[in-house]
């Protein structure tokens, strides 16, 4: 990413640094301050939005690791979240378990599912893999439903708010802190993974498996690792999600949710953690934006009142359209746009960057 106006790195240390210019350091500091200040400035609605966004960031980063870096497509993201959520629900209902038990248990479930459904990926590629993850989704949802009906929670499993160090997590602000830590932690872990041997191996096998193998990378191992890493994070996300909502039900984890996560990766831009974050923000806020627009329109044009009832459908259609537009016109996603804007200002008044090899 073009952070500086040229390539000024002279040591390996500089090469692996996360922030490398003063401006960047200042910007990152300001961003973190804004994030910390937010809960004191926002009303409950905005706070809820922020919480949803932070949750989505965790999921998007997890999927980005798998799809954007290791190059394995997955349509089972919602299924994995559901697995974490159901695991949490069942444990707290049956055993009255605390979050200190349910969170690791969810992680373990996620990891196990990652191994089970990652195994076919050793023999399958691309499309077939997407399909096996699709199967995962339906199977998990079915099992969850089955539990609900057997135990008589036909409308869903209600979960009590968790206690952490004597605090009861009910308030939006408290959750905000938890989610901020979760999202920040996920982003940092992901960034560090990617700068390590594991990350390089993932990128290599994304490029071409045979070549990666020839380079001495244990392809099956790293593929499986990508699956397990991603699904563990996702299942933990499901656990937090269940607590936040106080309620677990199969309906919350539709296939559309999986598609939304895939959309975050596409819209954000494949192969970029910053992209995953931007994609998560975009996709989470998108329906609210549409609702707002529809509100504006029906206020301005009373004969369009009917739109108000169709918000849901409009949201679907617009969402599909945006995904298509990104796929066709901006395959690099928001991260690509961001890079270009940055480069434009850094290079001004010149058009091309020296030593970037970026070409046109």
């Amino acid at each position, binding site marked *: 990413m073009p952070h500086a106006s040229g390539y000024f790195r002279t040591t390996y240390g500089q090469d692996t640094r996360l922030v490398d210019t003063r401006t960047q350091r200042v910007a990152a500091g300001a961003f973190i301050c804004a994030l910390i200040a937010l809960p004191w400035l926002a009303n409950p609605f905005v706070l809820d939005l922020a919480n949803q966004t932070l949750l989505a960031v965790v999921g998007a980063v997890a999927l980005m690791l798998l799809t954007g870096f290791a190059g394995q497509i997955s349509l089972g993201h919602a299924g994995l979240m559901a697995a974490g959520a159901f695991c949490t629900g069942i444990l707290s209902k049956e055993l009255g378990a605390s979050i200190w038990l349910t969170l690791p248990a969810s992680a373990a479930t996620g990891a196990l599912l990652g191994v089970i459904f990652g195994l076919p990926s050793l023999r399958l590629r691309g499309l077939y893999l997407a399909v096996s993850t699709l*199967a995962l989704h*339906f199977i998990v949802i079915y099992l969850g439903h089955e539990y609900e009906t057997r135990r008589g929670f036909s409308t869903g499993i209600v979960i009590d708010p968790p206690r952490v160090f004597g605090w009861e997590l009910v308030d939006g602000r408290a959750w905000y802190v938890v989610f901020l830590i979760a999202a920040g932690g996920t982003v940092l872990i992901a960034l560090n993974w990617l700068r390590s041997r594991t990350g390089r191996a993932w990128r290599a096998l994304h490029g071409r498996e045979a070549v990666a193998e020839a380079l001495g990378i244990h392809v099956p191992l790293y593929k499986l690792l990508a699956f397990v890493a991603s699904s563990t994070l996702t299942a933990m996300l499901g656990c937090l999600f269940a607590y936040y909502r106080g309620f677990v039900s199969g309906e919350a984890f539709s296939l559309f949710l999986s598609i939304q996560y895939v959309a975050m990766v596409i819209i954000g831009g494949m192969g970029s953690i910053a992209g995953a974050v931007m994609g998560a923000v975009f996709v989470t806020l998108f329906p609210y934006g549409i609702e707002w627009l529809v509100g504006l329109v029906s206020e301005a044009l009373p004969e369009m009142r009917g739109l108000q009832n169709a918000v849901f459908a409009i949201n679907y*259609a617009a969402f599909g359209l945006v995904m298509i537009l990104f796929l066709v016109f901006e395959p690099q996603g928001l991260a690509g746009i961001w890079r270009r804007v940055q480069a434009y200002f850094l290079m001004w008044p010149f058009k091309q960057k020296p030593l970037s090899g970026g070409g046109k």
Partner: protein
Amino acid sequence: MQLVVNIAVLASIYALISCGYVLIYRVSRVLSLAHGELMMLGAYGLVTTASLFAAQPGVAVAAAGLLAAATGALVYWVLMRRMTGEAVLAAVLATIALGILLRGAMVLIWSAQVQHPARMLGFDNPVVALPGGARLSTISLLLVGMNALVYLALWWFLTRTRYGIAMRAAGQNPRLAAQRGINLHAVYALAWGIAVFTGGLTGILIACDAGLDATMATIGLKAFPAALVGGLDSLVGALCGAVIVATAEVLLIHYVDPLLSDVVPFLVLTAMLIVRPWGLFGSREELDRV
């Protein structure tokens, strides 16, 4: 006996839908995950044509069929054409996005209420009693017949006509096909047209039988394992896959648990992927290509 009939009907539905998946995949190496929605669109096309030609059911159905074929070609021409040369992944994601777009658009245009195009056309779908005590609706019978017809027609088209042979050639080696003067875009558009046409026809029949609302897309998704179990590049495979999946589904629903309905195809698929990932009739090399 009733079970056998149920299996035959369900297998026909799956087979009719999955031949669309197979056709598009075999010719252009793209998996269309919007097939369920496109099928639904075909059925909604009938809702519209039925209101235009309420007196002539034949005209209404024919017009809806043509509309579906045109839609398929249009989808290729407007969207998927831009995706050729891109990674396979991008093309699949584009079809997913298209599916979402269509879902929203269809609710906007036709509302989310259940529609009954058969009633609009004044067709009351009488129950037929078969020898042996089994009963099924006229439309279900029509579905089975249509399935046989579609597969025969496809077989004839692909092996006996010039354009069908050109289509197979393009699917096998697009570069050589283009060098032999075959217009790839035309072939791909034709494949999409046929696939959406058969899908639309299925959608129309299902809608006439059981009414039409947003759940129809799920049927499209459930037919997908059938295509995969048979092997994505083989029509015979799609047929066998449909029979296997339908048999498993009907028997498990009947003897074990009705809730299983949505999972069975995927359970069969998972078993298949573990044992023989390239499908019953698919070729092993295919695995490396996708």
